[in-house]
């Protein structure tokens, strides 16, 4: 038997493709298909969830959390009854202006803490924090915030968001399963959250537009409605880039509103004094 001792050829056992090209191709495939799947599921679940009747949503909300905010006579809210009444009245007026469907009802809760926030959740509950209310200069600004939240409820945004979240977790959980690797799950979850933020921004824009219409209907003009966005700009001058945030950029919201209000103007309605510890300007 004769043997040879050749030089072993190099590069037989590995590919000469550039690793970055390989990586970006895979990333494109995975992120692209995740985004497409998530968008599809979001659209479908958003459409289907809005068929859940409002009464079911109210029952769900009642069963979930809000034990201490019993407006009928919990000790917590006795101290703030005037604020509560005023807000509830304003909400009722704005709901009429917005033509809220008859089966939907709004319950406003006044929360006595410094958080600068107001939000709408399941069952038609709106929570407004003293921190935000103190900063609003007049009733028109307050009405803008209120109308924005009522618009969310009118569009069924809280239950749509909950339904979408649930659908996505279920779907991705079944597809990825326990996951043989933790890193690709990170990529998929980042893509999912970026896609869901885009849908959330869309909801916010529609709520803004509806709120502007409501104010026009109720007051006949849009003066003072931009106050909220001006305050937000003052509060946080540096913002996250739009694609990372659940709301559109404050500047854009301001501009859209200014475009709408260019047509009419009028006198702003002041807030009732001695409420929320604020001096009306």
């Amino acid at each position, binding site marked *: 038997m004769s043997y040879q001792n050749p030089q072993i050829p190099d590069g037989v056992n590995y*590919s000469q493709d550039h*690793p970055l090209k390989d990586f970006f191709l*895979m990333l494109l495939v995975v992120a692209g298909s995740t985004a497409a799947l998530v968008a599809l599921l979001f659209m479908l679940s958003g459409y289907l969830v809005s068929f859940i009747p409002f009464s079911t949503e109210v029952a769900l909300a009642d069963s979930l959390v809000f034990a201490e905010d019993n407006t009928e006579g919990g000790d917590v809210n006795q101290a703030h009854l005037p604020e509560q009444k005023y807000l509830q009245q304003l909400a009722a007026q704005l709901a009429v202006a917005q033509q809220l469907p008859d089966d939907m009802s709004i319950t406003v809760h006044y929360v006595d803490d410094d958080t600068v926030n107001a939000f709408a959740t399941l069952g038609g509950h709106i929570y407004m924090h003293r921190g935000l209310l103190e900063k609003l200069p007049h009733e028109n600004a307050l009405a803008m915030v209120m109308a924005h939240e009522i618009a969310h409820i009118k569009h069924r945004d809280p239950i749509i968001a909950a339904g979408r979240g649930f659908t996505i977790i279920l779907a991705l959980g079944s597809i990825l399963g326990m996951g043989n690797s933790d890193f690709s799950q990170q990529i998929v979850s980042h893509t999912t959250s970026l896609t869901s933020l885009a849908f959330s921004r869309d909801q916010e824009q529609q709520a803004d537009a509806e709120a502007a219409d409501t104010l026009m209907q109720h007051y006949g003009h849009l003066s003072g409605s931009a106050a909220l966005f001006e305050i937000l700009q003052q509060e946080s001058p540096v913002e996250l880039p739009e694609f990372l945030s659940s709301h559109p950029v404050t500047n854009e919201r301001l501009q859209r509103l200014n475009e709408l209000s260019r047509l009419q103007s009028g006198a702003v309605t002041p807030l009732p004094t001695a409420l929320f510890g604020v001096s009306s300007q």
Partner: protein
Amino acid sequence: MDIIIFLVLLSVGYVFGRLAESRHFNSIREREARYQKILCFSERLPPPGPPADTVLVSGSAVIAVDYFKMIAASLRNLIGGRVHAFETLVERARREAILRMKEDAIRRGASLIVNVKLETASITKGRKQQAHCVEVYAYGTAMVPAEKV
């Protein structure tokens, strides 16, 4: 914020990983040329030749995976197909192990190794069993020419 950290780790892993890999391959090629004359056989029995003493020689190499390779491999786990990232890794480890075995043989004065075998192990970390390092162990029987008494 998570995304930024992720991207930073990814680029650091990629840059340093590629650097280490190309330096290692250059070293491997240079030493392979140098040790060309040490013959390795996978057969159990040596070819006929002068009387020789036998001794076990071995070499092992442990190569770690960098962050970029781990991400690329986990994406590949979703899609399927050749894991290009790990191919170079195992190739380097294997060739390095064989070279170290040859160096061991040279130290003992042998120029022939028979019954060469390779064993690969992955050193994993944590519950999720992700491959952290790969280890290749090469061993064989070196034929040291017997001293003429």
